[in-house]
């Protein structure tokens, strides 16, 4: 990484005077030993919800899309709302692993592994919705363009929905590769720590026989860089194309040019909220407070403040330009959002996404774990409402007032959505148990620069500068 000097004004990212050995031990510890009852309990509950997902999907496939509340006017409802919501959640992982890597943000090392895992699981959940929305899911392979005997029945290359198929499958593939590449040296570390031959074989297999030679590391670094370079445009393209699903249309409320960038900002926003929800719990259960420090939480809260406010500017811009356009349909679409039958969804969105993150202007609140946890939940609710507002409210009153109606979900839709939550949590809990939840090798790479025991040495280097006159680096200096 960059320079070996870091200003002692920057908060350490690894606390507790850790050595390389401590890092290995601390991060591998939660994956060894007896299964904790707490873990088993939550995994069982999550798996039960995943079962609900399977049940509802089977129900939907047998009895058809009619079991959903979606209808002729509101053709897209919970399904696409949930799809976009899950896809958005995945974005934090790619942002951390690719863009923050390019910006050389060292704090990414504490959270990137779990966030990348979250990306994979979120995309898995997201993918379910468009697939099962097709109705005749056994014909799902029709979306792939390949030479076939179906005659004129051929994919529509000018449709953003098809671009989505490519964007998301590419995104999933690259994210998976990136995540796995990062895991390879850590699997080798876990193999070397293993005490039983079965465990040794398992992790040796996963690590592709990594032995950590200079050549291995060189190739590993090149591959990481290439994948980071590929992921960076992908993190933009995926949600851009998701926004095109709406914005290329002429539906009032959908057709706004600002949608692509603010969808991306919103995705990062909700993704970080989900990372925080999970990591705040995980760091307690797995005793990782020294690696996921308050500095990490504060940085993520800052990103949420930034992206939430970007999204807020976009909402206000849309609102203003809808009026400014002079188009009565456009103005109505937005007036109907704010004061129509779904006003509560619109105002929940505004409150959760634009107003509530503003509490993070205060340093005390950014560093308060309870507040952060509460906010992370609130933001995820808000971002879900954003998609609901865009999709359902724009559709439920179309050009023909006789077809206006009020959409509500059925139990099948609710079951599928809650069920994907179970699926997501099951996968995440399995990940925490069997995989290193923090990137061991990457955390080690910043130890000598950002470990708390090195701050005094760094202060000595610059203590002659006037600005450091009263600086101390004892514990609590950064609180």
């Amino acid at each position, binding site marked *: 990484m960059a320079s070996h000097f870091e200003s002692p*004004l920057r908060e350490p990212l690894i606390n507790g005077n850790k050595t390389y050995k401590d890092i290995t031990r601390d991060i591998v510890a939660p994956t060894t030993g007896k299964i904790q009852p707490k873990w088993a309990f939550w995994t069982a509950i999550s798996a039960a919800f995943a079962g609900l997902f399977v049940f509802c999907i089977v129900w939907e496939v047998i009895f058809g899309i009619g079991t959903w509340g979606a209808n002729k006017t509101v053709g897209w409802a919970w399904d696409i709302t949930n799809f976009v919501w899950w896809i958005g959640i995945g974005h934090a992982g790619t942002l951390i692993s690719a863009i923050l890597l*390019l910006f050389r943000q060292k704090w990414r090392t504490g959270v990137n592994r779990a966030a990348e895992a979250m990306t994979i699981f979120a995309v898995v959940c997201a993918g379910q919705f468009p697939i099962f929305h097709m109705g005749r899911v056994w014909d799902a392979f029709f979306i792939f363009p390949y030479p076939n005997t179906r005659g004129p029945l051929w994919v529509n290359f000018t449709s953003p929905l098809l671009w989505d198929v490519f964007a998301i499958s590419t995104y999933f593939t690259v994210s998976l590769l990136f995540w796995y590449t990062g895991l390879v040296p850590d699997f080798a570390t876990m193999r070397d720590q293993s005490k039983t031959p079965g465990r040794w074989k398992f992790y040796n297999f996963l690590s592709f026989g990594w032995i950590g030679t200079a050549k291995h590391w060189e190739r590993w670094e090149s591959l990481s860089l290439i994948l980071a370079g590929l992921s960076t445009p992908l993190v933009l393209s995926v949600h*851009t194309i998701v926004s095109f699903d709406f914005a290329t*249309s002429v539906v009032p409320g959908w*057709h706004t040019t600002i949608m692509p960038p603010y969808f991306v900002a919103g995705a990062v926003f909700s993704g970080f909220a989900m990372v925080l929800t999970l990591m705040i719990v995980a760091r307690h259960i797995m005793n990782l407070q020294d690696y996921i420090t308050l500095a990490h939480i504060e940085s993520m809260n800052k990103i949420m403040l930034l992206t939430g406010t970007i999204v807020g500017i976009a909402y*206000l*811009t849309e609102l203003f330009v809808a009026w400014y356009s*002079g*188009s009565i349909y456009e103005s109505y679409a937005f007036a109907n959002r704010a004061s129509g039958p779904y006003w509560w969804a619109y105002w929940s969105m505004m409150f959760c996404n634009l107003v509530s993150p503003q509490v993070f202007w205060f340093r005390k609140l950014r560093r308060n774990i309870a507040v952060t946890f509460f906010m992370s939940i609130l933001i995820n609710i808000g971002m879900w409402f954003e998609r609901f507002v865009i999709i359902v409210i724009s559709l439920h009153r179309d050009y023909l007032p006789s077809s206006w109606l009020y959409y509500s979900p059925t139990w099948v839709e609710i079951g599928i959505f809650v069920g994907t939550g179970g699926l997501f949590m099951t996968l995440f809990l399995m990940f925490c148990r069997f995989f290193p939840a923090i990137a061991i090798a990457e955390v080690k790479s910043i130890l000598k620069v950002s470990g708390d025991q090195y701050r005094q040495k760094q202060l000595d280097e610059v203590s002659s500068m*006037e600005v450091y006159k009263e600086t101390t680096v004892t514990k609590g200096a950064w609180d």
Partner: protein
Amino acid sequence: MNTYIFDSSTKKNILIAFGIGVLLLLIGIFSYNSGASTGHGDDKHAVHASAKDATHTTVTEGAEHGHGHEAPTVRTALIANSYNVFYYFFYIALGAIFILAAANVAWGGWQIQVQKITLAMTVPIVVFLALLFVMFFAFNHDIFHWTHESLYVKGSDTFDEVLNIKKDFLNMKTFWAFTIVIAISCVWIVIKFWNTLTKMDTNPSRKLFSSSRVVSAVSIVVISFLINTFATWLWSMSIQPHWYSTMFTWNTMAGACVAALSIMLLFMHYLKAKGYLPNVNENHEHDVAKLMFAISIFWCYTWFAQYMLIWYANIPEETEYFRLRRNLDNYGILFHGSWVMNFIIPFFVLMTRNAKRKKAITIFCAIVIILGQFGAFFLMNCPPLLPKGGFGLISIGLLLIFGSIFTYITLMMLAKVKDLSSTTHPYYKESYNLHI
């Protein structure tokens, strides 16, 4: 060598650039009606023709424009071009503020040695605001079609139904209210930044360091919610008053930031060539070039999203904007040229690590971007006023003239800075040690 001296040879070079600009401008003015600009003969109502041409509103042309606008074409061209140049340099200074604020609020360590350049680049905003004010006072009817009272008289030939809806926003009172608030906030931000960062040179303290971050955070919010939003809507988007796009504000700001970074890179190389900034090396140049590369892509992203969505939906109220600009008879070459210069060239040239670290390559890209963004800004502001084409010597001449003024003010302010490399800043050593 930690204090910049604005020497006479530099002043002479700026004066030469200024002189060339004047020369080009004069040639442009005198050759305007002959040769270069065909189709300008019947341009009596070119000033406002565009909105009508493009939207095909029922308003009959001429009745309203016939009188009071007997301006010769060259007058219109001068007004449109000057206004665009002032707006462009206003935005470059605003972009400099934004970059400075973003770098400080994100605790950017690498840029400490060069941040005084960005700081000095924010000061010309005062001059260009003043010039914009002159344009607003003297030529508002020439630039802003919506300022004509006759558009809002119900029942008259010139009544414009769409503008009648917008008149709660597009009216002189609102315009001036926002314009004055924008000007005050810009000046306030520049003064705050200047004071905070220059005080650090003589009296470094942790307190000043945190206040520099507070100023940065506040100015980002003010720029995003107020300055950038309303400046683009009122000063630029309303030149073609029927048209609207939500992306317009962000696209403008992205262009301003990348142009400001490119100018900053040129200043950095100039100072290095003069022997200043001894510890700025190819690592810092690499970082600036990376940002140029990244923001060029972001600019193109916003540009493409705006264009693609409007093209795809094909709603006449929206496509009128591009119909006026994409047509090969008038602005087609500039239209396509600008995204080639702002995206294709920086993207392919600056892609590799080696390219970002080579002086000649980054300078080339910086110049391409500055000119390309100038073209992009011209396309935002001028086509409604000069619907038959009009990018030429006058535009380039004015760019050189006011570019020289921008450079002069920046260097003059840089000479007032005591500590050019910000050696007292707490992150100085991080910038000194930068190695990527």
